[in-house]
């Protein structure tokens, strides 16, 4: 390293820029306390400050930012869902993502790849046609394509899937993308910090103080904080927080696992998903194949990995790409997913005044990060949820108005 450059490393005049300030301890009170420093919570803090001028905000994170499900997903961004409510919502998210690197002044490696949801049966083809028509109706670019077009986009794919499950066609979704998920959390953190919000890592919420049905504070491992508004954005831990305020929800936690291979030269341009084979795969900017499968089959509050998962996933990967047989899996991990009965999130107000939920993010949270931050900020600022998330309200269960989102990832249909 040239000496001219090295002197900056020891000079106090040129400290390395930090993404966000560290604070000794939280203040005594805030206008809004956000529980959870993942993408959603940080995005909400950012939009509270940017769109609504609310800057007296603390984001409390019990670990480090982006260390939960934000850093554990397979980074796919898309909007080819099944219900018009879902397609509208995720499309709004994709549109923000497209300009987000510029807005946050941070390269999120947002890369539009095109997204194929493969169909191996006539009934799957029917679902693809259904999704394509709903998408087109809402104005989202999706269409059903035949095996020829899939082969053109991904010549490496064995269209017969080893003869086990021949591919009949696919739902092609042009805007399907991947992005650096930790970058999204860090970009929003820096944006929120610059606008005045405080980020407190290693700060765990132990209890939420509710009096006469209204939130009045939170107890943390760093002291008591007075606040009238609390946003719970802790996907995977939601039932533990809602238990603190005696709020019942349909959320059940299942682990969702993923893994990556060793890096390879770029060969897979598109994102491929097969509901029947329980595989979704894309190649990261580092060259690793990022792969996920279906949800673990029973409730566990743990991020343990299992051999069953890798065995099942890789055997299906080999059906699609037999030439990968000598490629090594180098990392495996899991996240805890907030599963809801209708595969849609639970967002907005709750019966407790000042307690807002951004939960039920199951296997579909990362792609929704910008729009959930924006709509939750709106909900908190106006104490009223915008129309875009009306169908995701908690009271939909009481009203028997479930959303029925079968286009979610890792869900067989």
């Amino acid at each position, binding site marked *: 390293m040239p000496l001219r450059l090295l002197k900056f490393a020891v000079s106090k005049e040129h400290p390395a820029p930090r993404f966000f300030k560290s604070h000794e301890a939280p203040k005594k009170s805030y206008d809004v306390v956000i529980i959870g420093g993942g993408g959603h919570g940080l995005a909400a803090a950012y939009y509270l400050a940017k769109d609504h001028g609310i800057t007296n905000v603390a984001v409390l994170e019990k670990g480090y930012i982006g260390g939960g499900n934000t850093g554990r997903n397979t980074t796919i961004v898309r909007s080819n869902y099944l219900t018009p409510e879902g397609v509208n919502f995720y499309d709004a998210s994709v549109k923000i993502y497209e300009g987000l690197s510029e807005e946050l002044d941070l390269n999120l490696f947002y890369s539009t790849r095109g997204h194929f949801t493969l169909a191996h049966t006539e009934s799957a083809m029917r679902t693809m046609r259904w999704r394509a028509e709903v998408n087109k109706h809402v104005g989202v670019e999706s269409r059903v394509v035949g095996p020829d077009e899939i082969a053109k986009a991904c010549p490496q794919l064995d269209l017969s899937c080893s003869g086990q499950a021949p591919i009949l066609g696919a739902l092609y979704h042009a805007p399907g993308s991947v992005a650096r998920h930790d970058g999204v959390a860090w970009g929003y953190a820096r944006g929120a910090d610059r606008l005045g919000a405080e980020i407190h890592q290693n700060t765990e919420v132990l209890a939420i103080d509710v009096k006469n049905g209204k939130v009045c504070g939170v107890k943390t491992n760093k002291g008591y904080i007075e606040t009238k508004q609390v946003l719970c954005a802790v996907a995977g831990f939601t039932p533990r927080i809602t238990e603190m305020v005696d709020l019942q929800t349909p*959320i059940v936690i299942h682990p969702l696992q993923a893994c990556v291979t060793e890096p390879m030269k770029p060969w897979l341009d598109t994102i491929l998903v097969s509901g029947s084979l329980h595989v979704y795969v894309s190649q990261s900017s580092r060259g690793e194949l990022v792969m996920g499968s279906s949800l673990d*089959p*029973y409730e566990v509050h743990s991020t343990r990995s299992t051999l069953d998962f890798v065995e099942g996933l890789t055997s299906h990967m080999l059906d699609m790409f037999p030439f990968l047989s000598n490629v090594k899996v180098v990392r495996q991990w899991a996240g805890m997913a907030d599963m809801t009965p209708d595969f849609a999130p639970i967002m907005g107000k709750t019966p407790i005044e000042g307690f807002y939920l951004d939960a039920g993010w199951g296997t579909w949270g990362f792609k929704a990060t910008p729009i959930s931050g924006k709509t939750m900020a709106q909900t908190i600022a106006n104490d009223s949820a915008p129309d875009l998330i009306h169908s995701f309200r908690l009271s939909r269960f*009481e009203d028997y108005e479930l959303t029925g989102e079968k286009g979610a990832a890792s869900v067989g249909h």
Partner: protein
Amino acid sequence: MKLLTCPMNGTRPLSEFIFGGEYREGPNQNTCTDAEWAAYVHNRSGAPGDKKEWWYHSPSGTWFIAERNTLTDKVTRTYLLGPNNNNSSQAQEKSK
């Protein structure tokens, strides 16, 4: 390989079993309010802890109860549901 003990067939690989969700007592449908019924239909106790759950041994078609901690994934006992069987449990831990 993870194992689970079926009260009828003994210790078998977990892949033979299907998770049936939490065991729950329903409210009286003739007397409860609509809100209570909706809460019973949809809501679950999602927080981690010791739970009583339905499990199904698929090859033999046996539904039974397992008591399991959802944080540690340890099963303390499994038994058939019924007036006479509730206590004749077979304590069994799943392999780690």
